């Protein structure tokens, strides 16, 4: 199991398109991907778009992502990169 703490850096936050990218990428891995907003102990499935949209995470929101499964390292690397790259958005 791997845990990573990330912060949403793109201007628009986790809006629909960004959330779709996240879910699409997470679904490519075997591992379970769970998200948990810092300071809140409810965890969400990273492979389900409704849960992620429900968070309505704006820029600066920090959360912890837990990766658990046979390809957890690859999953962690790819997803953290997606967030750090601001979902491929310019700002």
């Amino acid at each position, binding site marked *: 199991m791997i845990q990573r703490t990330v912060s949403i850096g793109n201007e628009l936050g986790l809006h629909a398109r960004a959330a779709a990218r996240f879910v699409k990428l997470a679904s490519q891995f075997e591992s379970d991907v769970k998200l948990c907003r810092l300071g809140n102990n409810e965890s969400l499935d990273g*492979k*389900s*778009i409704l849960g992620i949209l*429900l968070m309505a995470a704006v820029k600066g929101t920090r959360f912890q992502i837990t990766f658990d499964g046979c390809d957890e390292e690859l999953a962690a690397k790819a997803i953290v990169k997606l967030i750090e790259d601001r979902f491929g958005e310019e700002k």
Partner: protein
Amino acid sequence: MAEKENFKTVSELYRVKARDLGLRLAGGVNGLENRIDSPRTQKLALALAGYTDYLRSGRVQFLGRTEMNFLNRLEEADRKEACRRPFLLDLSCIVVTSGLEPPQELREYARQFSVPILLTNVVSTRALDEISEYLEEELAPTTSIHGVLMEVLGLGVLLMGKSGVGKSESGLELVLRGHRLVSDDMVNIKRLGTERLVGAGPDFLRFHMELRGLGIINIRDLFGISSVSLQKQIDLAIELVRWRDRSEGDRVGFEEREYQLLDTSVPLMTLPVASGRNVATLVEVAVRIHMLKKQGYEPGAEFINQLEKKMRLARDEQA
């Protein structure tokens, strides 16, 4: 899955119930932010007489006609002492019922110890019922889980399983068969009483579903009002697993398993999912089996009984 610690403040109770019970605030205003963390209520009776061990802070205290009659019979000094006793503990608030006027001494201590006094014209039994019912509902332990809650043949069925196993697709198939969607993806569950589990969707997601290839759809818009339900008691949990994750599963119908949550449980069935298996059909039949079981009829056991009978006859003939 996470349990939350729940409480209501006295001011919330006051705001919500002010109209129903005609509540009026009569002192102890500084204590409006006191916490109520239990739906159980108490009567002050014995505490006024000197026995205070049973009092719990965080519960609503009631003072009714019995208590008032008792206080009125006391001499002034004794009454003062009687009124002080309950305040040795951090009380949340005191509700004075039946339109009674609390004694001056009680008001004085309530102010001093910041314990709000709420007056109502309603009699104790009704006020008690109303307030405990409200608190029971509001203070119910809650949790949220990843799954789909459906109403199938009138029963609440929680579909669980890893993402991609086909929970939403099965839910949609069930809707097409005339069953109802309560919530897709995320289900907020609260426990009412000691064992009733009631699930509903988060407001924001209400009646929406996400289906790969179709995107986010609104079930009520597509299928009408009878295809959805706001909340539902959970009667059965069904876990969907990929066939290879669990090749066996129950082959006869004997296994009795339970899904534990919020310190209670619901019957649990596990259905292996594979291409060629119509999960919605299996879910619907699982619900029918559950209904039979509830009435004391075990389809699998019945079959085995017949088998045993047949074998016994065969043995007898041999002998």
